[in-house]
């Protein structure tokens, strides 16, 4: 994953944020539900898995096997945690975005097209 470095995509950013939000309860289904609730976006489970695997490979997430539940037929979950690198990346993305956004709002005479 070397060259991509710390650049992350939009869905990746979303997942990183949600994993951070959910803290110790972040696993495939909970992330999927949270995204749906908070943003209204329906993402399929396979997509979530891919994104989380990718983020783990990049070192932005860390995972371990967690507890089981009845609805899972006694199967354990893989719980994801935000790593320090993950948090740093989120900070960096946010700062870049805010920097850009502040420049956008400082153009007083701009006519936004319809």
């Amino acid at each position: 994953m070397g060259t991509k470095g710390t650049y992350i995509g939009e869905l990746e950013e979303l997942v990183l944020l949600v994993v951070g939000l959910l803290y110790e309860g972040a696993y495939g289904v909970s992330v999927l539900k949270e995204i749906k609730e908070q943003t209204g976006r329906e993402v399929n489970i396979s997509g979530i898995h891919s994104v989380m695997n990718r983020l783990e490979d990049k070192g932005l997430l860390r995972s371990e096997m967690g507890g089981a539940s009845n609805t899972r037929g006694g199967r354990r979950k893989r719980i994801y945690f935000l790593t320090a690198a993950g948090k740093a990346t989120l900070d960096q993305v946010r700062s870049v975005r805010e920097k850009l956004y502040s420049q956008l709002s400082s153009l007083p005479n701009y006519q936004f097209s319809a």
Partner: protein
Amino acid sequence: MSQKTPIPPKWPDRFLSWYCNDRVREQVQGDAHELFYWRLEDKGISRARRAFMWDVVRLFKWSNIKRTNRQKQQLNNIAMFKNYFKIGLRNLWKQKVPSTINCIGLALAIACCLVAYKFAERDFFIDTFHEKKDQIYLVTPVKMRNNTPRTSSVTDSRISDLIVTDVPGLEAVTRYQSTVLNITSDDREFRSYVGFVDRNFFSQFSFEIIHGEPDPLNAPDKIVVDEKVAEKHFGDQHAIGKTIRLKLQGREKEFVVSAVIREVGDFSSFQTGYLIPFENYKNGLPDGFGTIYTFLTVNEQVQINQLQDNITQLLDFLPDEEKGQYREVRLTPFTKLMSLFGELDEPFAFGINYTGIAVVGGIASFMLLLAIFNYINIATVMAMRRVKEIGIRKVIGGKRRQLVLQFLTENFILCCFTMVMGALLARVFLPWFNLVADENYFFDLANNYRVWTFMIALLLLITLASGMYPALVVSRQRPITILKKLSGKREKNRLIRVLLTIQLILALITLVNAVMFIQIEWHNKTKDWGFDRKSYVSVTGIPANEFETFRNKVEGLAAVRHISTSQTSTSNFGYFKQIKSGEKKFAAMILQGDVEYPKAIGLRLLKGRYLLPDSRPDQETSIVVNELFMRRAGLDSLNAQVKLDSITYRVVGIVQDNYNWNLPLNLAATIVKWSPDDDANQLIANTTPESLEDVKASLVNLADPFIHKLGVSVQASPDIYEGYFKVAARTRNLMLFSASLVILLAGMGIFGVVSLGINNRIKFFGIKKVLGASRRHLYKDVYKPFLIVVIIALVIGAATSVIIVNPVLELAFTDPQSVSALAVLLAAGLLMVVGVLTINTQVRRLVRLNPVETLRDE
């Protein structure tokens, strides 16, 4: 929720757990299930199910799919197999005796299979290595013989000469013939087949020239030999340029070796030990004589029918009386010569020996089956002693599949070892088999990829067939049962007993078969054949113009009782013809000769008379028949009339039924018919058995002036029938051999099971001895489990042997006997003796055993 909790759709779920990598299966499947239940509450059952299926499809992606070639796993595998290998070897070493028994038994069976393979291989692959084989045809003229058209494989030398010069559209004409000649080099003399071939032989047939010229037969005094011959004559010296002397037409002639070819052994119908130019054969022949195999290499676009017509037209060049014998000339594809064996006279190839292959292959598969049963039996008992290992492996997470794999790997090691032993044994068996089967097989593992393929296939087969059952049984054990020692021993013992029973049944069948073969062979040899097969001498091949003089000389011999001339050849007693008697039609054997003929071969007259010596009309219209003929024709009195070739004959004499050489020992309805002296080509001189050898010697003397001519032979009747007994003795030896192997295998099977059974219960016996068990008790304890097995095996074996062996005997003999109670009893007795002797060796060990030894370690 309703009474029944809905569950995710079964099949998609199974599919998911099947394809999912072990690493991620738990979380992925868990997520899918959780989503299902979430959606179930949200959207209802059908949409939840549909969504679940979609998820399964979406999750079917590279990162989730199970793959075997991940690097980590491979490394693991090597370590795992190393571990299996080590434990496998340790186990074999720990249980030396049963392992050895297993190996030897299986190796014997493998050796049988390899020999059987070798036996069958040649028939199917002979002559197939020639590159142009599909373009080559053999010239096969159709001639009339005894009023029936017969296809011959050989061509008259004049026709084959004409084909060379006059027929267009041929790429090449290659002629071949072989004969046995005296060969000398360096003062050593051999007799061997020498092949005569045209110069283009090597460009048409793919024999590889190792040393020497590419066109080696370009002069009449050159000779090509194969590797083996070159080594025999010249050792390790270079053969090219050396000389070999052959005796041709009574004169020695020198030939110079111009090439050495690769030896192909049995895989060529050509005799390729010595090959010399064809001129040498033709020059020695009288004109118009000669039976030559003529091969044509045909260009692909040529019409075979047109070519056949062209060659048929060449018959016009023959003198009229000879031309009349021919119908036409056909071309037979070279590749069909093996399968058309029976339809061609003077065949070039041997033909496929289906019966032989069935018999030898049948014996080999029987052996293999027996050995595998044996093996399964002992291997299961051996594996059951290792259940603790299985239990521990399972507890630390070994899956059943892995355990099966472990056992199969161990078994594979043992089978590989056995295969090597089997191949070595086969090398030992082959010379012996060659002797029995009168063949010349040898193992050429280096050049023969087919043998390798066969051996590898056989290896896989026996590994799976012998190893699968023990592996499955053992790996099925539950660790809790094993470690708590709640063994399910009763069930296991039953299985082993069933296998042992089957094994004994198979052994009994083979034994009964062998006993019957011996009995029938002995009976056939000693029974009355209905004629005097021990007291006449036959001379064939005397030229027609000398025949009368020769006969007069023979009449001068004092010891000769009857002389007859006949029209049939020595080994062929007669021929079959369609007979009409009233409404009945059937085939009868026709024996033709002069008036003395029935007396000369010693037929026994029961009723009526023989043909009258002086009455030509009587000779031309009367016949003597045997009893079977009368029964077939539905006749019961003399002077009945029958029709043969639309001529009506009167039955004047009835002889006792006579067996026949032609159809080994078959009774046939037989007619003895008169034929004029001038057609005769055989002379039969009857004498007393005591003076038979003297008469033969005198006849050889008298025939000496003609003996240099082709085809003169003097044979005493016992020698003629010797051939049959040789064949019968060979078959008998084969059956005897298989029976001894079976006894050995059965003995080893019993030995293995008994010794392992005792070892498993050695403490039990130790305690018994300490408590004062007598010898009788020990015998009883060991024998008891076998009693029922033996009784069942003997009963079923006796019944099945009657069912199975009778058809085999009917196939093998034309005059078979049914399986007798005596034979079954004999076989059963033999088997019992072997069983008792084997078990006793083990019980004696038990009797001598010091109980302290067995109990000390606890």
